[in-house]
Structure formats: structure tokens, C-alpha cells
């Protein structure tokens, strides 16, 4: 039973990550390989505050969200100058730098040793300790994130995001402040990733930089794309499928050492297959094709 709960909590965390990346990449069209960096920075900010200053959990959570939001705005800003594949490379660069900081700033982050002994979160006297309680907390955050995403994408603001994704020039000619919009949505997405980071850190009660690598970013991208970019439920479906996949593999009897690789081969292959035959993913609508202006 605990095992099932564990999977559900992980799915909840990845739903937050994928839905927030979906806002950035699926709705605003800014493909980013830096999501694991925000995931990690959020986790570290909250944990460090809790460990060093012993501030309450909710304060730490809020600080992580705000910090990553601002950082996201700063990182998203290059998107105003450089586009498409160059932007991907720029976010990639940020991802590597962030990892490098987490890994090498030993005096602050503990470096490769990570930060153990993260205390259980206490929210207005409620100590979140059992799997059930964590599931409630993560589920609550997940619901909040999905609700915010839903509000955003069904509003005129969401329509504007899609317009920017498909054709910036049209959006500008229609009076939309494309630059402000991109930075804003990047900041929101990063802030949401921080929520996932805080949940993850407190749930596992230990963090180290290896959870926040380029490969993790690629995994989150795969969830979004395989599930379907630019749709509310695509990333949710993607998270369920891809997070549950290794457990299924274990169930069919693959040794866990092999299962990890097989899982990656499966999702890498799925990514290629999606690009070949269904670039909009299982449920999505955005196929990473900018409005090809003809002659």
C-alpha cells in the first residue's frame, strides 16, 4: 500500500513539473531545458532556509516560489533576443550552470553529499509525516497548480500565449506585449517548479544535485511532449504513464538495474516516435511548428 502511495506522490510531483513546463513550452512555445534547475533551486532554497534559520515550512515554500519566479524571469529574458533552437541552447546552459552551482558550492549546498535530515513539514500545527499525509499535501499543491494553469489557459491571457507561440508577429500586430508576456509566463512556470522541488525535498527528506540534472530536464520535457504539449491534461497523462512505467517494468520481471535504462530507452524512443508521427503528443495541440510563412 505504501508503495502505491509512493508512486502516487511522485506522480503528483511530476504533474506539477510537467504542467508548469507545459505553460512555458506548450502554451508560450518557449522550449526550455532548464526545468530541473528550477525544480532543484526551489528545493534547495526551502531546505536551506529550514535547516539554517528554522523558518516555518510555509515561509520556506513561499520564499522558494518567489526566488525561482524572479530567477525564471531573469532566465526567460534572453528569449526576447534569441529564439527557437538558440533559446533551447541558452536554457541548457543555464541548467548546466545551476547544476554546477548546486554541486560545487559545497559550503552552502553540501555539494555532492547533498543535504540530509530535512525535517517534516509542519503546517499550522499539522505535521506531515505519513505517506497518506504527504499524498494529501502533494495532491493539494497539484490541484492548486492545475487550477492556476486552468485559469490561465482558458483566459484571454492564455489565448494570447498561444498566439505568441504560433506567430509572434501577428501577436505584436494585434497589440500584445510579447516580451512582457514571455518573461511573465517563464517566471510563473519556474515558480511552480519550485513548489514541486519543495514537495520532493521534504518527502524524500534528502536532496543532492543528481536529482536535478540535464537528464531530469529532458525527462520532464518528454512527459510534456509525449502527453501532449498545449493541452491541460496531456502532461498529466504523460506524468502518470512515464512515472509508473519503471514500476510496470519491474512488475514484468526486469531487474531494477536494467529497468532504469529500459525506461529511458522507452521514453527516448517514444520522443522520437512522437516527432515522427504525432508531434502534438497523445492529447496535445502544439506540434512545435512555428507558423511557417510561405513565400
Amino acid at each position, binding site marked *: 500500500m505504501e508503495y502505491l502511495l509512493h508512486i502516487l506522490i511522485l506522480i503528483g510531483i511530476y504533474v506539477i513539473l510537467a504542467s508548469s513546463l507545459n505553460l512555458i513550452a506548450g502554451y508560450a512555445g518557449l*522550449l526550455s531545458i532548464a526545468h530541473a534547475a528550477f525544480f532543484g533551486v526551489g528545493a534547495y532554497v526551502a531546505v536551506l532556509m529550514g535547516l539554517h534559520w528554522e523558518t516555518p515550512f510555509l515561509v520556506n515554500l513561499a520564499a522558494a516560489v518567489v526566488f525561482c519566479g524572479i530567477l525564471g524571469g531573469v532566465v526567460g529574458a*534572453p528569449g526576447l*533576443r*534569441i*529564439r*527557437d*533552437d*538558440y533559446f*533551447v*541552447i*541558452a536554457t*541548457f*546552459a*543555464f541548467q*548546466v*550552470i545551476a547544476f*554546477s*552551482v548546486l*554541486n*560545487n558550492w559545497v559550503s552552502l549546498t553540501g555539494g555532492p553529499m547533498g543535504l540530509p535530515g530535512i525535517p517534516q513539514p509542519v503546517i499550522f500545527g499539522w505535521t506531515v509525516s505519513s505517506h497518506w499525509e504527504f499524498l494529501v499535501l502533494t495532491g493539494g499543491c497539484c490541484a492548486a497548480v492545475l487550477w492556476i494553469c486552468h485559469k490561465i489557459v482558458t483566459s484571454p491571457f492564455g489565448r494570447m500565449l498561444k498566439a505568441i507561440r504560433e506567430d*509572434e*508577429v501577428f501577436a505584436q500586430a494585434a497589440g500584445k506585449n510579447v516580451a512582457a508576456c514571455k518573461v511573465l509566463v517563464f517566471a510563473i512556470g519556474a515558480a511552480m517548479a519550485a513548489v514541486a522541488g519543495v514537495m520532493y525535498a521534504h518527502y524524500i527528506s534528502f536532496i543532492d544535485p543528481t536529482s536535478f540534472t*540535464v*537528464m531530469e530536464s*529532458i525527462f520532464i*520535457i*518528454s512527459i510534456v*511532449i509525449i502527453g501532449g504539449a498545449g493541452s491541460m491534461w496531456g502532461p498529466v497523462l504523460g506524468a502518470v504513464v512515464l512515472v509508473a512505467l519503471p514500476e510496470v517494468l519491474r512488475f514484468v520481471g526486469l531487474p531494477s538495474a*536494467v529497468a532504469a*535504462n*529500459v525506461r*529511458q*530507452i522507452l*521514453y*527516448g*524512443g*517514444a*520522443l*522520437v*516516435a*512522437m*516527432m*515522427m508521427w504525432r*508531434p502534438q503528443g497523445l492529447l496535445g495541440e502544439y*506540434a*512545435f*511548428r*512555428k507558423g*511557417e510563412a510561405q513565400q
Partner: protein
Amino acid sequence: MFSQLLVNALIAASIYLVVAAGISLAYSVTRFFHFAHAAVIACGAYSVFVLHVWVGLPLSISALIAAPLGGAVGLALELLIYRPLRRKAAGPLVLLLASIGAYVVLQNVMSLAFGDASRSIRPTSVQEGLPFLGARITCVQLISIAVALALLIILLTAFVRTRWGKMARAVMSDPELASVSGINVDGVILWVSFVASMLAATGGILQSLDVDMTPTMGMTALLAGVVAAVVGGIGRLPGVVLGAIFLALAQHLSTWIISTQWQDAIAFAILLAFLIFRPEGFMGKKVRETTV
């Protein structure tokens, strides 16, 4: 100390150069970042490992076979994935995502086959290294610098002199005009992919002679290559030389001030700075901007 840093930088630059030349070539004909290059780099190293350690061929022969093997992997990717995608008018982002997927698959196949632990083809006895301007340089390192230089010279000459080189430059310069001039653009892309992948594999081989190999080794090498290629100006081979040297110097000389672990961060800070302030690099032409 200082001259040792310079020597180290030179060795790093030679590996960057080989990888970056491949990336730059591939990007300037295909117009997307070929992420799976990272896997091709590791493929090169592991092919040598298989041929040398498992089959027992001499190192030099293994390397000579491994490089074209890497090229063949690039060829297969082009034929199986990228060309069909291009036929469907896929944009650079779709191609990039597909190549990320291909990287994940290839890297994990290697992990399955060889394990995640590092493997080595280095000569077992620790070499003293030859004295060189007050620094020490090993034989293997000398060879790797020589190979990089030789490849660069061959590449540049082939580009300027041969018919194929000219065709490739024509496609880089203006693909549409190249096609109405009777050039089979798909064919050019195919063989440029082969050459670029061969360079990547060679980069992997050189690196594995200097340090050990892991299935993920290609990522760091690819990234350094991307930085060198962007800094030098995509599509300009002389620029790539400059970029590789610049990056290697920046990384190694900075170890005067801060610890070596920060080399990746430095490389990427340089990349970010260039992407934001001078995306065309030292020698390149302006990258496309939004046009109305």
C-alpha cells in the same frame, strides 16, 4: 605551473576543436542542433574499447575502424530520423527534440551494454610525460593534438579544394540556389552528417585516451563543442578554431583563481554571454531574426 596550464588548455582545445568542427558542419547544412552528437561521441570511445580490449586489435587500428563506425551511426540517424522528418517539413525544434530522444536511446543502450561504471583504454602504466617548455606532456596527449591538427588541415583543404567540399559550402551558403544548380541537397546533407559524426567519434576517442569513458561522456564534450562552435561563429571553420582555443584557455587559466570543478559553469557562462550579446560569434554572420 602556468606553462602546464597552457599545455592542458592546448590538449583540451584539440578535443573541443574536433567536436566543435563536427557540430558546426552539421548545423550549417541541417540548421538544427544535433543533440545526438553526444551519443556519437561516446559511440566512438566504446567502439575503440570493444575493438581494442574485447577483440584485441591494436589501439591505432581500433581507432581507425571506430571513427567511421561513429560516422555510420550519424548516417543511420540521418536516414532513419532526420530525413523523413525533413520530408514532413519539420522545423528545427522538432528535429532538435527528435535528436534529444535519439540521444537518450543511444546513451542508455550503451549503459546497458557496458554498464555505467567508467571503462578505460588508457595504457596501464602511468606515463611520466615528456618535458615541454617546463610542463609535462604525455605521448598520448601529443598524438591527440597532432590528430586534431591533422584533421583540421585535411578538413579545411577538403573544403576548399574538393568538389564535395565546394558542394557542401554551396549548400551552406544558399540551399535553394544549390538545388537549382543541380546539387542533390539531400545527398550533401547525408555525407556531411557522416563526416560530422566521424569527427564527433574521433573527439570521443581522443578524450577516452586522456581520461576514462562513461556512456554519458559525450554530453560534456558536446556542450564544450557547442560553446566553441557558437563562440567561433557557426559554420566558419577558422572561427571554430578560435572558439575552441578561447574556451580552453578561459577554462584552464581560470583555474588560477577558482577550482577546476567550475569549468563547466565557466564554459556555459561564456556561451550565455555570447548567445545574448553576440549570437553570431566571433566570425559568423548574423543569425536569423524575426522578419516581417
